[in-house]
């Protein structure tokens, strides 16, 4: 069956996110002063043919480890539906 995979990649806590800081500054400038700890990540979406969801999820996790995320600095979350 064809499944939709969504991978969310984000910088790990403790890794300086300069983009997040810049966006936070801009939000503060617009008056949203209560905003804190902005982090900018990315979402990667794709279709995947697989026999079942669990197998697909394992495949996508392998893709994250090998290419989609750099686990030295990034964490990831996988959704398969």
């Amino acid at each position, binding site marked *: 069956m064809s499944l939709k995979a969504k991978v969310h990649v984000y910088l790990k806590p403790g*890794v*300086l996110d*300069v*983009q997040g800081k810049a966006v936070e500054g801009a939000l503060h400038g617009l008056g949203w002063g209560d905003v804190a700890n902005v982090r900018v990540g990315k979402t990667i979406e794709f279709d995947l043919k697989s026999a079942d969801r669990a197998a697909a999820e394992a495949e996508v996790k392998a893709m994250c480890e090998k*290419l*989609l995320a*750099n686990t*030295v*600095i990034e964490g990831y979350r996988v959704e398969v539906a």
Partner: protein
Amino acid sequence: MKAAVVVFPGSNCDRDCKVAVERSTGAPVEMVWHQETTLPAGVDLIVLPGGFSYGDYLRCGAIAALSPIMPAVKDAADRGVAVLGICNGFQMLCEAGMLPGALLRNAGLKYVCKPVELDVTNAQTRFTAAYGSKRRVRMTQGNGDGNYFADAETLDRIEGEGQVVFRYVDNPNGSARDIAGIVSARGNVLGMMPHPDRAFEPELGSADGADLFRSVMASA
């Protein structure tokens, strides 16, 4: 004596590296397309050049690190052949797991292109032996993602093992502990953000990069 420069789609310092190595050392340099799976026989130095391989897509150096030529580069490094990654090449070496850590977006968010002063913190590597007692060198740097990061434990380890080779005198990008260049545990793989290939003749503002190429070719 022979060197090879690997050319990736988006490399833009490949020619600079070839000219720099040839003029500094007299060694012939072969250009190797990233789709190759073997390196020229008998190379003593493999250079991964600066640039924007694959448009810096996904992460700088991430896709280049999976190029068909990279298993041959890793294999050569495992045999003790010298590998030098400059700028984007340093990012590739980290992405390939050949050096610890990673390069993040510059702390000031800007692309920083300017000459930088560096402290040679280990002059006993095969890349820096020719500096002798000289402890301060000058090279040009140009990058947007040159902010070296590793966890505290890794930083302590590489500092303790003498793997930190160059440090910024005036840190331009937020790099952890002012690190500008590191070597592998074995000492034959060097990654650095500043460009020795842009500093190999006085006409370029500095000739300090030439000694690096001379050191490594003399060590072969």
